[in-house]
Structures are given as structure tokens and as C-alpha cells.
């Protein structure tokens, strides 16, 4: 049986308990590979910067591993709560310019390199362009205002002479069509 498939069936909580229970490099690697994309997503949402989000991944996961190994996560089975708290704290610190990554890296030479952190999702750009071009003009404009101008529904509504609810409906429909198109289906 493929060992990777065995790990996929193990829950995050079981992996955390294995890391907390002693040296288990395979459990650590699996945990890092699962958590890295989730922490990156949190970082991109709050920091809006890919490099800063990658830093957050390093910091949050090094801190998580360190605390698990040291038995300092009181309830490893509630791992998500610990990671959530760590992310909030680290994002706040990043905004204040306080960095603890260097100190963590000193204790964990090489950072997370040996755990092969997964790359972020990359889209086929020509396909995305084609999918965007297939949307109705109004849908494309709303997505552009949402993702490029980062305008909330209320502001888009006032710019386009629509109601905020109408903007949310158009945005939701447009994003759904875009998802189906970039993921291989029809727009």
C-alpha cells in the first residue's frame, strides 16, 4: 500500500498527537503539507502579500511544531484552535513589524525545507483570460472591481447603479461560472 495514502486517512488531530508523542518525521511532514496551504490562505487574506504570507507559513508552522514537540499544546486534538491563535498573533506582529521568524529559524535550521511545503495553486493564465472573456460584461466588471480594486459590494453598487444585493448576486454567479470554467467545465 502507498504510505502517502495511509497518511491521507489519518486526521490532523491524530497527526498532532503523533508529533506530540515523540519524534515522528513522517507525521510532521504530513502535518506541514496539510497546514501550509491553509495558513497561506489566511495570510493572503490578512496581509495581501505573497511573500508575507509565505513568511507566515514558516513562522506559524515552526511555532506549531515546536510547541507540539515540547508538549506545550495543551490539547493537540484541538490543533486548529492553536494554529488559528498562532496565525492571528503572528499577523498582528507582522503588522507591527515584530518578527520572531529569525529566532525560530535559529532553533530549526533550514526552517521547513525538509518538509517540502506545497506550492500555491497556479492557474493556467491563458485559460483564465479566456474564461473571464466568456463572462457577461457586467459579471466581468464586478469581478474586476472585487479582485483588482478590492471594492466591497456597496461601493460597486454605487458605481454601477445597482443595489448591493444585486452586486452580491452577480458576483456569486460570476465567480461560480469562472470556477467551473477554470476547473475544466463550461463557463
Amino acid at each position: 500500500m502507498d504510505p502517502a495514502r495511509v497518511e491521507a486517512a489519518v486526521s490532523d488531530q491524530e497527526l498532532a498527537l503523533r508529533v506530540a508523542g515523540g519524534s515522528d518525521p513522517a507525521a510532521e511532514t504530513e502535518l506541514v503539507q496539510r497546514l501550509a496551504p491553509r495558513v497561506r490562505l489566511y495570510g493572503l487574506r490578512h496581509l495581501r502579500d505573497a511573500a508575507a504570507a509565505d513568511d507566515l507559513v514558516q513562522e506559524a508552522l515552526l511555532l506549531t511544531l515546536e510547541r507540539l514537540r515540547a508538549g506545550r499544546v495543551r490539547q493537540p486534538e484541538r490543533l486548529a484552535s492553536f494554529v488559528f491563535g498562532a496565525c492571528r498573533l503572528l499577523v498582528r506582529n507582522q503588522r507591527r513589524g515584530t518578527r520572531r521568524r529569525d529566532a525560530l529559524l535559529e532553533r530549526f535550521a533550514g526552517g521547513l525545507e525538509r518538509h517540502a511545503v506545497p506550492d500555491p495553486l497556479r492557474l493556467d493564465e491563458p485559460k483564465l483570460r479566456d474564461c473571464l472573456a466568456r463572462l457577461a460584461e457586467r459579471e466581468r466588471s464586478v469581478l474586476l472591481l472585487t479582485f483588482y480594486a478590492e471594492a466591497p459590494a456597496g461601493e460597486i453598487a454605487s458605481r454601477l447603479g445597482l443595489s448591493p444585493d444585486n452586486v452580491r448576486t452577480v458576483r456569486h454567479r460570476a465567480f461560480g461560472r469562472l470556477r467551473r470554467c477554470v476547473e475544466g467545465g463550461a463557463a
Partner: protein
Amino acid sequence: MSSCSTPLGDALVLGWWIGELGAAEARRVERHLLSCGSCSARAELLPAVAEDLRGLVREGRLPAVLSPIVVERLQLEGRRIREYRVAPGGGVRCSVGPEDDVVLARLSARFEGVTRLDLLSRVNDGPEQRYADLPFDPAAGELIVAPPTDLLRARPASVERMRLVSVEPQGERLLGEYTFDHSPWPGR
């Protein structure tokens, strides 16, 4: 990847990404995304689309009707923008410079009473293209159109005629006709 028994809907996650949720709901979404591989993998499309869409807009590679706030953002980011403002019935000689990131056609028009706006475009004697139900700001007095810069740059000398029409129950009402006399950039 295991599936989720309580998946987050796209609308909720999109609202979280944009920052429209209240604090308590945002925290609930974040806790779920940090504990759920299935939902977080699905949500990864948001930053991927945001990043690539930003690139397409900044490089003028997405044909679109632009809002003034998008143009302002492009300016703030230092993108090189070439603009042609044309009044109804007017025309302009135009081109695309090698350094231009974005080219804008700013079509002046009065939108009073308009509920549906269409743009019709014809290059030389080619077929007329219709862009239906365009988004517009009724108070703006202009429609900002960004054709793909790479396609314009590759275009030989040509004349493009655009017409803005208000689509009404009794037919179409012409709001303005605009002529773009395009030449390739000298030395290209």
C-alpha cells in the same frame, strides 16, 4: 482529500476574502478553513484568481469596461496609461506605444434614461461586434473601454468605429458614434 460534512459556500468564503463578514462570522470561517483541507483547497482559487486577474488588468490584457476606481488604482500603481477621450460624433488618431501598459477609449455620452447600454464595434469593413448590457455609472458621462493592449499593438493601420446605443422597448437610441483611426507605432 477527505470531503467536508459542513462545507462553506462560495458566497460566504468570497465575503470573507473581501472582508465583508462581521468579526464573529469571519473567525468562524477562518477556524473552519484552518481545520478543513477540502474547503481550504476550494478557497485557494480566490487568491489565485486575484493574483492573475491583477496581472491581466495591470498589463492591459483583459478586454473590459473599466470603472474610474480601477483607472485610479492603475495610476497609483504607476502603470503607463494612454487615453483617448472622444465626444459623440468625434474621432481621434491613435496608436499604442511600446511602453504603454493600458490603452483606454473614454467615450463621452449622456446616460439619462438609459437602462441597457450596448456597444457596437466594427474594424474597417469587418463584421460588427456587439457588447451587450454593459455596466455603466449613470452619472459618469462617459464609458471607459480598455481593449487588449497586445491585440491593439499587433493591429495594422485600421479604422474602428464604435457606437453606443441605449436599448429601449421601442428600439435602439444612438447615444454616440466614435471613430478611432489607428496606426501602428512608428518604427514598429
